């Protein structure tokens, strides 16, 4: 049974579009085009937590034709950080190594423990907003500091830029960075997903450019539309994508030209690929993704926490995994096969202040977004895990001049 849906803004009726006439005309166009497709449902996947936030917050699903299914795929960088990657951070922290990471990572479950659990045991874990803050922290302490680096290419370019600025010798990186384009290939091939087109995230494409999707479109014969984050941007993107599906025309279209070019940000890409190399690896709940993980190149192995420290994951074997975790369907949700409402734990045993799965931890996770903008209203609001930089870190030298 579906929990009653509530919308933060009272639903689409109160939605403040910049241009209500244009919003109405886009919604009408979408209904018309999806109707022309004469198949139900038509499934479109987006791969961005910010898209899902905007869709949920502005009540966009209420304007969509019933036969259009807009699914969030593996677009939450915190959520797809795999269990063994979290375990590596937990083991390091429990070995006494100081860890700095983004706030959303703290409660993400590993095999048996999260970083927050390790912190409760006394491990030294600092929440930072930026890799630059982690470097500032390292400069102020004598002991080694490991930056547990998570996020997609938009965040990985910051890590790369910081590494190229000669960080202090006690600064190390445990990279769990992920690269989005390869995972679209995996999701497109999943037998249960049946995605007919992808809405690509505007800001990741700001880095990669829209040209990066051309080989994917050629291989899978599925259209890709790059879209921005404003409700009108998303509606316009969906209309274009539906037209390409209706016309059987696999192509890449850029509906976010104010931020995205064909080649993308070449300066950022140059730094990204100088520091990182793509390797295959698992994404939580999804699959092994060839070239989906970003690891430090050998040239930077002196900064690589995996080379500097002996990370013995066997030390976690004495801890039993949480029983509830067996019931978590985050993997199927991130693959677009199931929705949070298909999960017996959603909004009951799994809530933001006590998450069972990664999708309920992050502000970009499907479950947390649905819970906050469309879950049980009587469960009340809960605090976020993101926080600012640790106290005492100077903002001086934030980025070397």
């Amino acid at each position, binding site marked *: 049974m579906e929990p009653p849906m509530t919308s*933060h803004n009272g639903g689409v009726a109160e939605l*403040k579009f*910049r241009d209500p006439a244009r919003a109405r005309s886009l919604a009408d166009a979408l209904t018309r085009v999806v109707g022309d497709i004469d198949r139900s449902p038509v499934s479109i996947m987006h791969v*961005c*937590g*910010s898209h899902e*936030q*905007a869709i949920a*917050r502005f009540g966009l699903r209420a304007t969509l034709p019933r036969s259009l299914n807009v699914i969030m795929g593996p*677009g939450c960088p915190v959520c797809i950080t795999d269990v063994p990657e979290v375990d590596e951070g937990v083991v390091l922290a429990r070995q006494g190594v100081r860890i700095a990471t983004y706030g959303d990572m703290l409660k993400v479950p590993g095999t048996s423990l999260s970083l927050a659990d390790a912190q409760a045991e006394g491990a030294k874990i600092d929440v930072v*907003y*930026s*890799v*630059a*803050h982690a470097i500032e922290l390292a400069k102020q302490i004598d002991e080694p500091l490991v930056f547990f680096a998570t*996020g*997609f290419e*938009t*965040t990985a*370019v*910051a890590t*790369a*830029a910081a590494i*190229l*600025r000669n960080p202090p010798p006690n600064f190390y990186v445990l990279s769990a960075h992920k690269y989005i384009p390869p995972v679209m290939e995996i999701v497109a091939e999943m037998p249960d997903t049946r995605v007919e087109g992808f809405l690509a*995230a505007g*800001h*990741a494409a*700001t*880095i990669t450019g829209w040209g990066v999707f051309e080989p994917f479109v050629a291989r899978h014969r599925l259209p890709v539309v790059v879209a921005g*984050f*404003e*409700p009108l941007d998303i509606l316009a993107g969906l209309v274009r994508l539906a037209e390409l599906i209706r016309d059987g025309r696999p192509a890449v279209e850029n509906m976010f030209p*104010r*931020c995205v070019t064909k080649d993308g*940000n*070449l*300066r*950022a890409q140059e*730094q990204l690929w100088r520091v990182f190399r793509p390797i295959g690896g698992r994404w939580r709940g999804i699959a092994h993704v060839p070239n989906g993980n970003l690891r430090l190149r050998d040239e930077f192995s002196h900064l690589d926490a995996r080379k500097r420290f002996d990370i013995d994951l066997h030390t976690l074997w004495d801890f039993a995994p949480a029983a509830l975790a067996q019931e978590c369907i985050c993997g199927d949700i991130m693959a677009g096969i199931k929705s949070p409402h298909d999960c017996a734990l959603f909004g009951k045993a799994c809530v933001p202040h006590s998450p069972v799965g990664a999708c309920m931890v992050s*502000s*970009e996770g499907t479950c*947390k*977004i649905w819970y*906050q*903008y469309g879950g049980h209203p009587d469960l009340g*609001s*809960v*605090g*976020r895990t*993101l*926080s*600012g*930089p640790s106290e005492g870190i100077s*903002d*001086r030298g*934030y*980025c*070397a*001049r």
Partner: protein
Amino acid sequence: MCLGVPGKVVSVDGSIAVVDFWGVRKQICLDVVDQPVAPGDYILNHVGYAIRRIPAEEIGATLALYEELLRHPPEEDDLMAADVRSEIDGAADDQP
């Protein structure tokens, strides 16, 4: 979070810009932005790094979303607005 937040460049000193986000001034690193940045330009900030200079003629459309999100007083259960606020708050303060 991948949304980022736009701000207006106040001054530039080497690879650092002082950027105004709705009255709050922060230091933003220019190491990865691929176009020259000057006072008066708008940039898109993500975790303290400018990833894009936003064309001046497009800035109205870009700011609209953020102004809608920041129009309401902070609420913890408005994830998207909270993410935007933490993206602004998290960046390094400009020196007094």
